[in-house]
């Protein structure tokens, strides 16, 4: 049973009178617990694909289902609820809540998105702080953390509510090379431990080599079909 299934997925933006095709009828499936990268040059449609999987954007035509849900059919609050329940997000520029500590940022989805009881919440946040190696920095605010540390917190936040899928659009683009590598390592470690599916995008060749499955986009089309990078 595939986790994600896209069929003839198409997205065309309309800018003024001009149609800008961003994604032109792609088909792919992603299996549970896989570690997947979408790669390709700038403007090839990576973000657009990830946004449609994450039900942040609606396809112009075609279909995408996540966990057997036709996410394109969800309305505003239904899609928010679906994301809150099933999908974690990691952003290129971290997007932590600046007035919250690392601990509180990780705790945020458990309070504001889901409704966990305090004791359960505390255990879970501590476990994730531990898992991403941020226990010592738990009380620091984002502006007191390095980029890599911020992204560790973001990884923990994406996983804290038992998401089955984590979407990360260019999670390492704002990080130096070593740090970027360690974040990808962390993501894979979390996949190994929790069985969460990670789908990320990158145009960094070294980073894309870390993916187990790679989809290459060019001008809105898939030019390979989920080849395992390590053969």
């Amino acid at each position, binding site marked *: 049973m595939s986790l994600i299934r896209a069929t003839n997925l198409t997205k065309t933006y309309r800018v003024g009178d001009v149609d800008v095709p961003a994604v032109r009828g792609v088909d792919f499936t992603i299996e549970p617990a896989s570690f997947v990268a979408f790669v390709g040059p700038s403007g090839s449609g990576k973000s657009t694909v990830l946004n449609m999987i994450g039900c942040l954007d609606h396809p112009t035509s075609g279909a995408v289902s996540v966990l057997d849900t036709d996410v394109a059919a969800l309305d505003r609050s239904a899609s928010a609820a679906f994301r809150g329940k099933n999908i974690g997000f990691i952003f290129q520029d971290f*997007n932590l809540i600046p007035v919250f500590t690392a601990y509180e940022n990780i705790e945020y989805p458990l309070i504001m998105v889901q409704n966990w009881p305090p004791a359960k919440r505390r255990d879970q946040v501590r476990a994730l702080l531990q898992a991403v190696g941020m226990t010592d920095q738990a009380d620091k605010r984002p502006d007191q953390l390095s980029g890599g540390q911020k992204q560790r917190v973001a990884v923990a936040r994406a996983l804290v509510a038992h998401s089955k899928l984590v979407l990360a659009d260019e999670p390492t683009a704002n990080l130096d090379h070593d740090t970027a590598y360690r974040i990808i390592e962390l993501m894979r470690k979390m996949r190994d431990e929790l069985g969460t599916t990670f789908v990320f995008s990158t145009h960094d060749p070294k980073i894309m080599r870390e993916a187990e499955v790679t989809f290459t986009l060019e001008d809105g089309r898939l030019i390979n079909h989920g080849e395992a990078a390590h053969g």
Partner: protein
Amino acid sequence: MAKLVQLAARNLMRYRRRTLLTSLLIIMGVAAVLLFVAISGSFKQMMIGQITDSMLGHMQVHRRGYVASIESLPLNLNMPPSLVGRIKQALDHEPAIAATAPRVKFGAMFSNFTETTSLRVNGIEPAAEAAVLPLLAGRQLDGARGGPLLKRGEILVPVLVSRGLKVKAGDTVVLVATNKDGSVNGKTFVIRAALESATGPGGRDGYIHIEDARELLRMSQPEVSEIAMRLKDPAQVDRVSANLEAALSDMKNKEGRSAVELHSWERLSPFANIARMIDVLTLAIKIMLVSIVLVSVMNVMVMAVYERIREIGAIAAIGTPPRRILALFLSEGLMLGIVGTVVGVVLSLGIIYALNVWKITFSFGQQQGLLLAPSITLQDVITTAIMVVAVAILASLQPAWKASRMDPIAALRHV
């Protein structure tokens, strides 16, 4: 919920100076309104008290047409005993009335045997008058205090007249009056005391005993010019007015119209207009407060939403329900309103307390050394607070709504 409030509070503290300035604006607005209400209210209450408790009473009954020509104190519009008796009966049936006092009013010449001036004179029943005008006794500047207001043969003279004619308590003076048939009569009186002037109609009147007045005017029967009333609760004027209006309506004159007229102090005193002005000013300053709160809170919230567009995009993307985002920004506005209100209320209560401790006095017209005793009712505080907080929420509504409807992708891409 607690986390939401915490998040709102921390976000407000993120732009400390802006939050402080906005709160300050609200604080000053709230304090200005409450102080204005307290001070103008106490001024109004005091002036109304002076007018009703030392001159007019709360309401008066006259023969129809008397008030219209009250400047000339017409003797032919007095009420005969039969009418007075029926009016008394009606007044006795109204439980809200605390006391009534009949008066005979007339114009007279006042003379110290060398100089003469004109004087408006009230013939009164001392005990009844004292009950209707509790502050009248206090207006006596010298002479015999305590005991009845005056005895037969005594006169209370307004201080302007006593100074002008250089007479003092104990001096003998003469009143000369023309009765309604045109015959002139005189009578000597002993000055009991000089009366301090009061602002308003009747503030410069003299007082003698009602029997002396009837004697001077050679009345064949005990007529009355007006009946003044004191109510147990001054706030009931309108209600009592309506009751009495109905009770007195069956007293018809020859033309079939009501023979008597009822006036509340408001219709008899020009100060009622000043009181109304104060109410209008209070309303105006409240409207200003509402605008200040509306504009300043809305300004802050619009800025807050604009500055945090990407943050809003992120929390929306990870699944925060739109209504929670709405609640988050609403609570920021609400908090601004609450903090401003609480501090503003505390500040103004402190100032009101201080004003009462320092005993500020002021003068109004002829009256000096009036003590300003500002006070504010719990109701005023609560309505002002509710108003400010409600407006703060209202002002946050549009920005908060906008934040909750934001498209996560567009918001995340915002630079």
